């Protein structure tokens, strides 16, 4: 049940982050699409983790407080999602 709550919370936070970024990256909308692609390819376990929630919450708070650094936080999340991509995890299996 706790995992389900985390999953729902993380999805909500991610939607909020995407909505914020969409507003502040109107000159390059492909960046938000890229972020959403990375999200869709990330490991489900990571997407419902406390680690992801903490990173997402931190990025959202900072992005809202400093709109001049929107791309910095998008890049940070993309890097994190890339590190936890489902494809990467499969490839790392022995």
């Amino acid at each position, binding site marked *: 049940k706790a995992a389900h709550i985390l999953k729902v919370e993380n999805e909500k936070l991610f939607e909020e982050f995407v909505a914020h970024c969409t507003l502040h990256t109107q000159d390059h909308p492909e*960046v938000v699409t890229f972020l959403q692609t990375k999200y869709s390819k990330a490991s489900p376990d990571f997407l419902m983790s406390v680690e992801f929630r903490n990173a997402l919450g931190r990025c959202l708070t900072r992005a809202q407080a400093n709109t001049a650094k929107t791309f910095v936080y998008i890049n940070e999340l993309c890097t994190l999602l890339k590190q936890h991509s489902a494809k990467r995890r499969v490839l790392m299996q022995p």
Partner: protein
Amino acid sequence: EPSSMIDDDDDPENRIAKKMLLAQIKANYSSG
């Protein structure tokens, strides 16, 4: 650097992050 690549972002860190993201998107697009 072509003038079209220079944007008017005030924050240097943001400018670098934007360049990195656009480069990754371009690389992904190129690789199919």
